[in-house]
């Protein structure tokens, strides 16, 4: 009787110890049961699905499956095969017409004069600007600043050594949309290409948002006509700026 109870005691404590060592921590993923249910044999993005009972050769073989791959040149994203009529003669869609050279940069700046994304009504413009703002704040604001003044947090903290472009400066105000689009596609100076981060439409949404910020800064209204490229904000904006200056001066006096 005594001996049996001692044996019972030992087995139970052994079981407790066994399961106590299952929990994941630090470098240990924890234990699992029936790994075939949990691990994908098929290729999964960003995941090394190799596990102990995998039948797919060595770990090195397996890791070849999980490397990032570049799509074939000219690949069109899923759901992007149909081209809207408004984009038929667009220089930026489905393929960007310019290469990453200084010559093409000036060409793009001259030839792409208006935003390819033309909102149909005020509600759509509001949507575009809202989405553009979200994207701008994710992808641009760390350097170019939330206000577009080239004073983003990274530069302000002194972490980033190069001064980012100030979209509120005269040269950016008067420049064509092509300059922005080309810079997003291929980068400029130390800025690298952000084409992989933003799709065609998203790039234009961001440019819409930058333009609206410029308009707001100079006191102009980013109207539907302006966003469709039917009315330029440039000369008006400059006049408005001068008026503002005069007002300020008067106030100062």
């Amino acid at each position, binding site marked *: *009787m005594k001996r049996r109870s001692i044996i019972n005691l030992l087995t139970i404590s052994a079981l407790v110890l066994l399961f106590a060592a299952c929990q994941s921590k630090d*470098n240990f993923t924890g234990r699992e049961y029936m790994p075939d249910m949990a691990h994908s044999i098929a290729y999964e993005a960003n995941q090394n699905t190799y596990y102990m009972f995998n039948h797919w050769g060595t770990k090195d073989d397996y890791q070849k499956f999980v490397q990032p791959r570049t799509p074939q040149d000219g690949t069109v994203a899923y759901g992007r095969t149909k081209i809207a009529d408004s984009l038929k003669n667009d220089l930026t869609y489905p393929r960007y017409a310019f290469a990453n050279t200084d010559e093409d940069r000036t060409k793009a700046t001259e030839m792409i004069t208006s935003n390819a994304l033309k909102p149909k009504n005020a509600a759509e413009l509001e949507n575009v600007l809202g989405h553009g703002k979200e994207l701008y704040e*994710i992808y641009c*604001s760390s350097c170019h600043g939330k206000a577009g003044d080239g004073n983003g947090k990274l530069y302000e903290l002194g972490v980033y050594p190069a001064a980012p472009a100030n979209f509120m400066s005269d040269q950016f105000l008067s420049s064509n949309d092509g300059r922005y689009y080309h810079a997003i596609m291929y980068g400029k100076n130390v800025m690298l290409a952000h084409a*992989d981060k933003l799709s065609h439409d998203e790039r234009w949404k961001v440019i819409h948002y930058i333009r609206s910020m410029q308009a707001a800064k100079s006191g102009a209204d980013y109207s539907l006509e302006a966003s469709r490229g039917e009315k330029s904000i440039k000369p008006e904006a400059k006049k408005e700026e001068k008026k503002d200056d005069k007002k300020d001066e008067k106030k100062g006096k």
Partner: protein
Amino acid sequence: MIFRTFLRCLTLALILTMSFNRANAQDPKKGEAIFKDNCASCHVKDMKTKMTGPALGGVEERWSKFPKKELYDWIRNSSGVLADASYKSNPYAKSLYAEYKNTNMTAFPNLTDEDLVNLLLYINNMYKDGCAAPPCKTPDVATAKGAKTETKEAGDNGSMILWALAFVLVLASILLARYINSLNRLAQQRAGESPVEEKSFLQIALNPTVVRILIFALVIVGGYTTVNNAIGLGRQQNYAPEQPIKFSHEVHAGKNGIDCQYCHDGARRSKHAVIPATNTCMNCHTAIKKGPEYGTAEILKIYAASGFNPLSGTYFKESVPTDERLAEYKKWLKEANADNKAITESEISVQLSFAKPMIGKPVNWVKIHNLPDHAYFNHAQHVTVGKVACQDCHGKVEEMKLVKQHAPLSMGWCINCHRQTKVKFDENSYYSSETKSHKMYEQYHNEVKSGKRTNGVTVEEIGGLECQKCHY
């Protein structure tokens, strides 16, 4: 002879005083403004580091061989100097042009001679003294140190005290039991009864009643932990693996305030949040070549993986062998760490040895949040449509040096959230767009409008608990 040396000294003194006077007469602050507006996009402010353009420190010495006017012309319009062979500096200019990937510097025809004098003065001051107008104020060491000392983490003092208390109590009860026992025996002796033989500790411990109680307690405790751990099989909460590069989310997302989605750009548009490829790292690290914690060591690994040559600012061709790349990296490490004496020759070779196996290969990041193959999860659905913050599931990643899995990612955890979370219809283009409207949403909309429904709509009510949404 003496006269000649005297003359030399005199002229030297004259030149020195004159240059001093000139330096005082000019305004380096104006130069600073000009630099910020025109030059800072391509030239680094410390004047010692190359970026898009060369390091500007010592530019006047380098151009001292040529007439001053040529330097001014070069700054105003570099392509003019390159095209015109009558400039004495033409060959030097051409070599510079070739070194910087045949890119022309932007022309600044509006800068006057005075502007340029101010600018060059500013450059010189920054190069030699580290500030626009010397004497420079050195940052207060004491305050800097004070800011750095971190508050020590409060350990689990509380639980330690509890354990100590429990230990003392158990000890006290055992002692008390023994006292009572011996007092009892004394009483029995006085009464004239023969005292019961005192039992040894082993005898007490192996007493069937004690063993039964112990087994019962073990079954309870053991059963509880066994079931708990069995449920936890295959779950990875608290998993915090070391990564091949010591990337700190605390620095990037916390201190520098980079949006999560800047790097994890798939979260808003695909199933995967995406572990970024090295090109995303390079967006910043072509310019930022030193980290605040590990200096060049960790950033070197990105360069090795992406094939970037920080000396020239270009990428190696694929055919360049490992040894050649390592030689370049060694040169760069020496150059970049020249001002840090702590980084010795051996430290550099250690850094190189860690980077060597990573050359030309994708970084083997360890994925932390793994879902089993039979569960479907889509990031875009939660981030873009559901407007769920990253931190809701991943914890405060912006405070983590090493990422740790915050949530259990168990089914119960998913379901619980789906039951409690209210659908965010407001300012949500997914639900407002006409194509996605559905009778169900319309019904809820009317209910909310008529005041019948006050608590909003939970995810459960729009089908968040249907099995085949996640298992199919």
